């Protein structure tokens, strides 16, 4: 074995002793392959510093910038391990041997060990097998984070972020025997998630090996899912906390298209709450302009807006509240001539109109289109709310005509302008209409279909009345194939007066 003495002037002129330094295999590239070199110095630290200067490249491996020893290095002087920094100041004598040895450490690690155990216990399936299982009824649940799924997820998979998996799985899986395949990006988080579900009691849980990466690599179908952005998560945070809403519900609201008939006393609170709730597209039909007498109850409008079209005033106020939504305005008077055009393509109609002609018209068109008609009306201290929806597939409800086949005589049905109204009352009733609308879009709860909710502000009483569908109704009855053509509603209501 060659021992090469250092020849730089620093180590040969100060009379310090010469020691031998054992160089470990990985550092021999810096000593031209030599396993041992001779270095002068008075202490171990000095020897190491001179070694570092003499053999560029060794220094950073054994000493930090401040001259202290690196973590993964052991230094021995003869048989003595120099463990502390102070130990490095130990004096050396001629012929001493200093050994530099890498610290050898490692280990399986808790994570690897746990995963390995789980792989023994939880069945793993390939992406192809996961797809087949999904086709035959298994839930395919993607537990990745929202920013990960934004770039794509398997077609048909449901997104349930791992942090909420245990809390929300029962909204998706009907029983503990529901077959579930969990997936993530690479197959690790899904394995841990599968373990969580197993502990919860689910008996048929599998993990998709290789995750979404392998799903894509295998050429299986991918879709870009609709997800909420960061600012939406912040804005709708209180909705996202509710299991019945969550991200899925909030996306349903975002996709929702709701047309408000009237931007007056009922339309104002309804529109404001629907905008605040994040209903993505709101339409407003109103041909009126803001009058100062409206401001006692029509909270969409402000004193500055007196004289401007109500739809413009409403649009400005709603976008100020929630700039992420779309507000479409129709400064028209709803009539038989334009009703079908204006009411087509909406998910829900919120009727906040103040006259019977419009109510019958809205009813007849919504019956024809099969869409829900959220109805509200007020009189002085009383209000009523219902959802007319004969087009509902499961248990169809009555229409407005089932309840009121004919309009009352005009002298018994005065408008607010004629009879007056407590300003707060439309706030209550319009807000109840907004609640029903949100429930409709989310598909949750018991709707006021077949029920009329009556509110008496003076007696502080809410009462619910049952409203049965009339099988003989001329518009939605059993014998009606296609509902009749629209009529002249002004004349119809005037006839009612006759």
């Amino acid at each position: 074995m060659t021992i090469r003495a250092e020849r730089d002037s620093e180590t040969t002129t100060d009379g310090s002793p010469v020691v031998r330094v054992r160089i470990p295999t990985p550092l021999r590239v810096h000593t031209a392959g030599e396993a041992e070199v001779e270095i002068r110095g008075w202490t171990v630290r000095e020897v190491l510093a001179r070694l570092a200067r003499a053999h560029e490249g060794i220094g950073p491996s054994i000493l930090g910038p401040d001259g202290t020893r690196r973590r993964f290095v052991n230094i021995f002087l003869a048989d003595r391990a120099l463990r502390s920094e102070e130990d490095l100041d130990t004096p050396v004598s001629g012929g001493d041997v200093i050994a530099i040895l890498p610290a050898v450490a490692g280990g399986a690690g808790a994570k690897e060990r746990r995963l390995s155990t789980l792989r023994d216990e939880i069945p793993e399936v390939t992406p192809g097998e996961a797809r087949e299982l999904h086709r035959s009824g298994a839930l395919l649940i993607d537990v990745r984070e929202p920013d990960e799924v934004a770039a794509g997820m398997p077609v048909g998979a449901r997104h349930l972020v791992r942090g909420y998996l245990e809390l929300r799985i029962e909204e998706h899986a009907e029983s503990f025997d529901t077959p579930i395949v969990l997936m993530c990006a690479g197959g690790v988080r899904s394995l841990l998630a599968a373990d969580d579900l197993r502990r919860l009691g689910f008996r048929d849980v599998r993990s998709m090996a290789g995750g979404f990466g392998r799903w894509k690599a295998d050429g299986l179908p991918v879709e870009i899912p609709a997800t909420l952005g960061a600012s939406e998560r912040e804005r709708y945070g209180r909705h996202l906390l509710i299991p019945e809403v969550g991200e899925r519900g909030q996306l349903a609201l975002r996709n929702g298209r709701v047309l408000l008939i009237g931007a007056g006393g009922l339309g104002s609170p309804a529109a404001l709450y629907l905008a605040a709730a994040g209903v993505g597209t709101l339409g407003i039909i109103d041909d009126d302009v803001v009058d100062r007498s409206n401001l006692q109850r029509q909270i969409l409008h402000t004193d500055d807006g007196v004289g401007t079209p109500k739809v413009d005033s409403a649009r400005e106020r709603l976008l100020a509240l929630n700039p992420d939504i779309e507000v479409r305005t129709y400064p028209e008077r709803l009539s038989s001539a334009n009703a079908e055009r204006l009411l087509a393509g909406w998910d829900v109609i919120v009727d906040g109109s103040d006259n019977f002609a419009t109510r019958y018209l809205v009813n007849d068109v919504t019956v024809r289109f099969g869409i829900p008609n959220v109805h509200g009306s007020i009189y002085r201290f009383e209000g009523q709310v219902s959802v007319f929806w004969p087009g509902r597939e499961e248990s169809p409800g009555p229409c407005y005509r089932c309840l009121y086949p004919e309009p009352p005589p005009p002298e018994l049905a005065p408008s607010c302008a004629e009879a007056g109204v407590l300003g707060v009352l439309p706030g209550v009733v319009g807000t109840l209409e907004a609640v029903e609308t949100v429930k409709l879009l989310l598909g949750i709860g018991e709707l006021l279909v077949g029920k009329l909710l009556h509110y008496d502000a003076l007696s502080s009483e809410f009462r619910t009345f049952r409203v049965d569908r009339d099988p003989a109704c001329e518009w939605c009855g059993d014998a009606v194939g296609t509902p009749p053509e629209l009529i002249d509603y002004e004349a119809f209501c005037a006839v009612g007066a006759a």
Partner: protein
Amino acid sequence: MTRTGTCVPKVDLRLKDDDRGRLLDWACEAYPREACGLLIGRPRSGGWSVVEVRRARNLEPERTDDRYVLDPAAFLAADRDARSEDLEVVGFWHSHPDSPAVPSETDRQAAWPGYAYVIVSVRRGRPREVRLWTFADDSFQEGSVIP
């Protein structure tokens, strides 16, 4: 720490069946804790030949089920003994109880280039496999263990 990585072609480790059996025995004996030790031998073209395998104490103070710290005194003694026989410490071995014989992140953080790293997998106390790894350019590459 700067570790000068060199491009390491796929290498092999010649390990006699008896020595391979010893590693598996030691790993099973230590189960469920991790065992570790040294490989003494000589480099040769394309890898190393192991002449002697040694077991060392695992000085990891707490998590001996999933970590090891090889006793440096055993390393020093092995280094000295190897030199006296004109051999050297060519690498190390350690066990992975209930885990595959694949380097973990913990292994990566403490690895050095130029050595043979043998990992012995034990599952439920029974021997599973012995695999060779080398470290270069901040990652492990697998080699072959040959008799």
